[in-house]
């Protein structure tokens, strides 16, 4: 599989900008606090999808032609809003309304197809089912090039409904759906191991009949490679992306305090410094 070097550079630049947007929104939210750790952990995944892979154009006429992205772990919405801002779907001004009165940008995504938000998410375990319905719809309409991308969390895999949908996608031979698992090893109040052990997720999904891969979720090259791979075997794709919660800023990495918290001015400035200027 050839990976274009400019693609890699483009995605890396996208992810750096995305982290800045995430921090800006978190800082703007002030005392409302924001889900920071789980947004930073998917920055590269989002950047690969929106910066290189997905067919996703700003033109409103393209709403029914674009690939569909579903953030099943909806609390990571800062990464979605940031990506949509970088794609020109959400303005800089609107980004600053995050979690403010009457804003459309709440702490969990609210459907707005004009803005690029395909569904409302936030109650965990529901996104993949929406993706399956969408993928079946694409097949029925004979739209063979369109794909559905769903990001789920490792904590989210505690939900039974995830496994209903994990069973169904291979049953319906949905080779047009891709699930990316953000395996950052934490959930709301502790590590996966402390709250609910979920070892060997890759083999669990393999046993359900998916094409499964395990990669470093911050390695753009690996992400592009595995997501571009076309297996041609009628199976859906599952990518276990090993990530670091809070990735990119030294004081947020692997510290679950950053699951949902306030980013103060001094911390915001320190974080920006660490990301470097562009």
């Amino acid at each position: 599989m050839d990976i274009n070097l400019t693609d890699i550079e483009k995605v890396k630049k996208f992810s750096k900008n995305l982290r800045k947007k995430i921090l800006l929104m978190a800082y703007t939210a002030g005392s409302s606090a924001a889900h920071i750790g789980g947004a930073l952990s998917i920055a590269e995944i989002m950047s690969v999808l929106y910066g290189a892979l997905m067919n996703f154009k700003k033109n409103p006429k393209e709403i029914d032609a674009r690939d569909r992205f579903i953030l099943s772990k909806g609390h990571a919405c800062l990464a979605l809003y940031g990506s949509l801002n970088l794609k020109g779907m959400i303005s800089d001004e609107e980004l600053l309304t995050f979690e403010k009165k009457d804003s459309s940008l709440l702490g969990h995504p609210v459907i707005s197809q004009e803005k690029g938000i395909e569904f409302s998410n936030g109650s965990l375990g529901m996104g993949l089912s929406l993706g399956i319905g969408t993928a079946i719809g694409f097949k029925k309409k004979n739209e063979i090039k369109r794909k559905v991308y769903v990001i789920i969390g490792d904590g989210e895999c505690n939900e039974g409904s995830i496994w209903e949908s994990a069973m169904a996608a291979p049953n319906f031979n949905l080779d047009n759906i891709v699930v990316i698992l953000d395996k950052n090893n934490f959930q709301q109040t502790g590590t996966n191991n402390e709250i609910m052990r979920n070892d060997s997720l890759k083999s669990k999904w393999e046993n359900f009949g998916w094409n499964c891969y395990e990669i470093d979720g911050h390695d753009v090259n690996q992400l592009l490679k595995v997501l571009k791979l076309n297996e041609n075997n009628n199976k859906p794709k599952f990518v276990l992306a090993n990530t670091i919660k809070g990735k990119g800023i030294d004081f947020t990495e692997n510290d679950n305090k950053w699951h949902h918290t306030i980013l103060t001015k001094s911390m915001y400035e320190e974080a920006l410094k660490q990301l470097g200027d562009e």
Partner: protein
Amino acid sequence: MNKNFFKDSNLKTFSRIGSRATFGMASLELIKDYPNLNIITADVSTSAGLDKFKKNYPENYIDVGIAEQNMIGIATGLANEGFPVITTTFAPFQTMRCCEQIKVNLGYMKKNVTMVGLASGLVLGTLGYTHCCIEDIGVLRSIPNINIISPADCFETIKAVQSSLENKLSTYIRLTGGANNQQVYFKDYKFQIGKSILINKGKNVTIFANGTMVHESLIALKILKKKNINPTIINMHTIKPIDEKAILLACKNSKLIVTIEEHNVIGGLGSAVAEIISRQKKQVKQLFIGINDEYSKGGTYDDLKEKFGLNFKKIALKIRKSYEQL
């Protein structure tokens, strides 16, 4: 839909086979009007009368297995891609097992799915209260943007499905009664979501009923008439949006308002009607006939209707007593 489908002989057949099988028969007609229709079930093709549909239209039939939460999610995804979608399974699983999916996907996001809840109420009384369903209306009524219909007979079931496919919002259609579902309507009539239908114009007492209780009320009427009570009977097929106008008129014209439903007296038709009455200056007494907030011991459909006073004899008696105490 082809008018011939509603000819007398078919209406009699519907009544004999019951609402579930009628739904299955209607699906074979609906597909002609909606070639893109998707019917999704959770392993209940036979119970929903869909075996013929499944065989003849495999491309339009999806079985998700016994996984109702996934069913609503898949239905939403398909609806979002522009397909008309009907989901169906037994009422408790069609409403409560996947309640949050209904809230988020259909209520919050306003995606349009028609949900058909099979064998609601007490008809599965011998199977116990895991399968009876006396809570569905109450549970769904608190979710914005969902229509709720409880058809009076098999004919109205078809009308309800048709109307909900044309409606912008999602609709829950609650099927009550078994085989030999008594006929209320013998010829074609106008059905509109949210618009109740006058069945008998009487005086002093107004009955709001839905589902199988419309027919029970009609027989109760014969008994009551002998006692010189002639209630107005209204088929309140839509519980949400409730027909406020009809209730206001009843408040104006009646001394007693009666609600009759095969549902818990909490949260259903009785509550919906009371919510309107209580806002009026002139208060009218309301008699709630329904299941008195309990899970009883089991029994046949008739046993349970007798236990909860939901047959015509008990209905007539309760109304007479209440009327005499005015």
